[in-house]
């Protein structure tokens, strides 16, 4: 049942670091996070790794396993051969703090720039009324556990640090789409916000974000593409343009 696995774990801080080799016992059904916890308890008590729920619900334990952005708690050891060397490294898009822990402040800064939810008034009896079918579109995006793996994998910022100022990334695009499609939200400038403030234009729809999403949110198809189309609608469709121009003249 149990076996000895070979692990290579990146250890270091913002001044540099290296991959270190470890041999750790693995039991049936364990995930990579279990193995890192065993490392902490038996070999490296100061190994830094974030985690909370250990059930794929909180999005804390994001890292890269054999170069792929993954949640450590949802990656079963059984998906690797017993003699395979498993390499665990921190998310590459964000600055390293220590070992597998990165500074994900970028995502919080971009979230703070989102124009807040602006609801319509309640009905006279104090309730809001919405149909299930109308809430489901935004509910899909509200499944997001903010693991930031979509941000990590997005080549616009993964490979181009200088794009970070102008580009919010997939996590924040689905936030904007969620508000845009929210039945109660009264703002009409969400699409303009995605274009002008969040820099959605830099996205060229490679769908890497959708591929890594542990919640299987169709980030590209259901959020980014519709938001891009809305941007185009608003701006360039001649009839819309004519209509808004005429209205403005009045």
């Amino acid at each position, binding site marked *: 049942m149990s076996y000895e696995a070979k692990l290579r774990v990146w250890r270091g801080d913002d001044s540099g670091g290296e991959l270190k080799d470890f041999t750790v016992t693995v039991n049936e059904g364990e995930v990579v996070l279990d193995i890192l916890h065993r490392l902490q308890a038996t070999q490296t008590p100061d190994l830094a790794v974030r985690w*909370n729920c250990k059930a794929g619900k909180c999005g804390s334990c994001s890292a890269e396993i054999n170069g792929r952005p993954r949640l450590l708690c949802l990656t079963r050891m059984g998906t690797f051969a017993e003699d395979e060397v498993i390499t665990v490294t921190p998310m590459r898009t964000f600055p390293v703090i220590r070992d597998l822990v990165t500074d994900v402040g970028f995502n919080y800064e971009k979230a703070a720039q989102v124009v807040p939810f602006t609801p319509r008034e309640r009905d006279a009896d104090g309730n809001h*009324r919405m149909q299930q079918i109308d*809430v489901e579109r935004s509910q899909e995006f509200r*499944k997001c*556990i903010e693991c930031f793996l979509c941000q990590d994998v997005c080549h616009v910022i993964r490979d181009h640090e200088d794009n970070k100022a102008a580009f919010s990334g997939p996590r924040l695009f689905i936030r904007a789409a969620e508000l845009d499609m929210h039945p109660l939200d009264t703002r009409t400038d969400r699409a303009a916000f995605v274009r002008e403030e969040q820099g959605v234009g830099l996205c060229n729809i490679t769908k890497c974000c959708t591929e890594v999403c542990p919640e299987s949110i169709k980030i590209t198809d259901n959020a980014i593409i519709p938001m891009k189309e809305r941007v185009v609608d608003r701006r360039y469709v001649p009839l819309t343009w004519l209509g808004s121009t005429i209205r403005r003249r009045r």
Partner: protein
Amino acid sequence: MTDLERHTYDVVVIGAGGAGLRAAIEAHEQGARTAVVCKSLLGKAHTVMAEGGIAAAMGNVYPEDGWQVHFRDTMRGGKMLNHWRMAQLHAQEAPDRVRELEDWGALFDRTPEGLISQRDFGGHRYARLAHVGDRTGLELIRTLQQRTVALGIDVYMECTVTRLLTGEDGSINGAFGYRRESGRFVAWQAPSVVLATGGIGKSYKVTSNSWEYTGDGHSLALQAGATLVNMEFVQFHPTGMVWPPSVRGILVTESVRGDGGVLKNSTGSRFMFDYIPDYFRKETAETEEEADRWYVDKKNNRRPPELLPRDEVARAINSEVKAGRGSPHGGVFLDIASRHDADYIKKRLPSMYHQFKELAEVDITAEAMEVGPTCHYVMGGVEVDPETAAAVVPGLYAAGEVAGGMHGSNRLGGNSLSDLLVFGRRAGTAAAARASSSTASALSEEEVTEAARAALAPFEREGGENPYTIHQELQQAMNDLVGIIRTAEEIRQALERIEELKVRVQALTVEGHRQYNPGWHLALDLPHMLRVSECIAKAALEREESRGGHTRDDFPGPREEWGALNVICTADGQDVALSRQPLPVMPADLAQIFEETA
């Protein structure tokens, strides 16, 4: 101290789960300069793991529902040991607290009329849990997080508070802690501090709780002079995962049963029919046929026994396993696959489907789950005033799981999220009010220096044990000796182990340096875990009866004299002292509710 980051606020909230964020939002809206201090990143608090829903008698599905019925259910679920006034305020205010979440962006599932949908849960007479699939906690945390961000409230992420600071008059004047990232120390000066730190589950081996649940809030309160009430009551959720070992304890939502799932033993029998206590007999179905009819016609049928309060179901599962009728991995079977089609299950229980598929390679639409009890929630906590959430220490407030009294001896599912909102808001209001009329005294430099010295002590020592070993031993002891079924003999053994571990903690050493060092963090969490474990064990030894989340094999069944008594813990140097205190008496007009609807 020079190497110290200092801040001044009106209100400092410790904890960023549902209660902490709701308190901070309220304090901010009352005009207080407010900060939230939390151990994890914002949005990762344990609230995120709540699945089923928020209990609130909105009457959207059953117009017959109202606060009186919710109040009655809550008190009966807690075996009448709840603080009646907390249970009343909770039942009365929960609907408004849910409605305002919609104004902040929450998107609950809907009824055909477009109102917030409400689902069935154990112990609730009517379907009353507002929900979003089975990820309601995520919706709650995200809504409050986004509101907090929109209001511009200061959040100190990944900071751990190691000590509450008090002035010469004994009132709160701030808190001291460290940044996990750098290990650097921080002091917050404030006349009001709200504890919203959650629970204690990390003292147990099998638990649904995350690493944050070290009982630090309970322990900090105790050290600052506050009292804890009824710490013996620990809820073991009946359905945690049991296999594979690495996921043992992870929660399987009660919604599985609310939506039609049934519990079976190895012979295929729905054993819960054999465990219906007299107390709930009148409202529980006697046959499978009646129980099944209830799902479609609740007015003319009684509830399935699978939906008895959690303490009853957890004990029944424990008994079945002990009697040799368990599942292959030491649990029982929870079956929804044979009761609903795959589409229904995936729609109603998406995260359970996902969780079992990813972690156990089980398809819950095709086969039964294996489940067993897991340490889930502590009913005991900081003794507070129901109106203000104020502890006995001036300037200290507590809301959510860290506070006691609301749930009596056993909490109903769905009553936690509503508790967070109702008493989070009340704590925020009261904390802001105090701050508007009083200022914090200057922090004692001596106290701050001592707090820093204590935090660094594990680095100074050499050759001691590693903190992980001590933690594992504590978890094993609490699990084996102060678990779901208890005896005086075993509790005494646990107390001996705790005393021994208290000595060993004083000598442990940590490796490495202060920057993001989990070994050091655990070393500082351990004294809290030991202190709350001592509270639980001592209170459990004191209460010589069985009631709710406290079952004594040597004192079976509830005893009338204990039904009117709270067990109070206070700090006595490095030890815990106990006293008994009469339960507040419910006014006659409320007591009548139990006669009318019994």
